[in-house]
């Protein structure tokens, strides 16, 4: 009897390609901004660049989660299945929360200088990944990050209300976070977004990160 696998090769290939492209762009942004940060030690640049380090790692762990999910019946011992599924999700939750908080802080640090912001961000990220660990599902992770997204939007509106314009950057960041949450939906037990739609969303998401990369490249020659 042949081994029973539920791997969908097309989906695996799409997810692998998507992950490789996004992780490459995220790490490139982190690497390209190294010199201007080393020269200035400017807080805004620091939080901006670590955002992409965290998101690069989050996308890697997201792929691991998708991979384990796609493997389906391959891990047929309950304990292995649980470990292989939950740990990528926990790290995914930690790194993406750190990424969201870092990008938010890079926008608001001039207005609200928070002491020990990295410790605070770590505490929030650990709580969210802890919730993911104990709930054993991505549902609460999605909900917690949706709350963070709302918090980010409120902060951005507060900042941008002074300049009375919605910048292109705000829209880019909003889309970046939104696509991240849509990406998380693919990990849930109720995958209600059809594969084709999800692939289109991934392509748009690459375009959004690509625009950010192109903007970074213009100033980091």
């Amino acid at each position: 009897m042949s081994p029973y696998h539920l791997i969908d090769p097309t989906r695996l290939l799409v997810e692998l390609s998507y992950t490789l492209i996004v992780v490459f762009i995220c790490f490139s942004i982190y690497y390209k901004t190294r010199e201007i940060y080393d020269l200035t030690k400017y807080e805004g640049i620091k939080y901006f660049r670590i955002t992409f380090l965290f998101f690069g790692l989050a996308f890697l762990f997201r792929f691991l989660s998708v991979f384990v999910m796609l493997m389906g019946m391959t891990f047929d011992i309950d304990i292995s299945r649980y470990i292989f599924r939950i740990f990528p999700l926990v790290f995914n939750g930690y790194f993406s929360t750190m990424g969201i908080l870092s990008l938010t802080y890079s926008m608001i640090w001039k207005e609200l200088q928070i002491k020990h912001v990295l410790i605070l961000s770590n505490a929030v990220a650990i709580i969210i990944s802890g919730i993911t660990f104990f709930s054993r599902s991505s549902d609460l992770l999605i909900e917690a990050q949706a709350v963070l997204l709302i918090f980010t939007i409120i902060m951005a509106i507060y900042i941008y209300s002074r300049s009375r314009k919605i910048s292109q950057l705000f829209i880019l960041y909003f889309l970046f976070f939104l696509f991240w949450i849509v990406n998380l939906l693919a990990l849930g037990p109720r995958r209600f977004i059809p594969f084709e739609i999800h692939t289109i969303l991934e392509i748009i998401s690459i375009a959004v990160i690509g625009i950010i990369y192109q903007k970074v490249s213009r100033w980091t020659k």
Partner: protein
Amino acid sequence: MDKIKRKRDRLEMIFDILNIIRNHHNSIKPTPLLRHSNLSSQSFSEYFNELLEKGLIKEITDENERKFLTLTDKGFRYLDKYKLILGFIEEFEL
């Protein structure tokens, strides 16, 4: 808004100080540098220490035990990249 201005000013002040050193053939004594920078001695002292700590300038002593300040490679790179740094901060509203 004041905080933004202060931060911007800080990068600008560093640029100005480094530029003064470069314009003096990359060798200037601390006292004329203080005079040219138009800073109070307390502010100058803060910037001076910061520039040394960040490795943007270094102190050298000649055979007569006189101290001079010169730019390091990193200091030259700061001057070269300054406009790009400002552009980056502007572009991403950091």
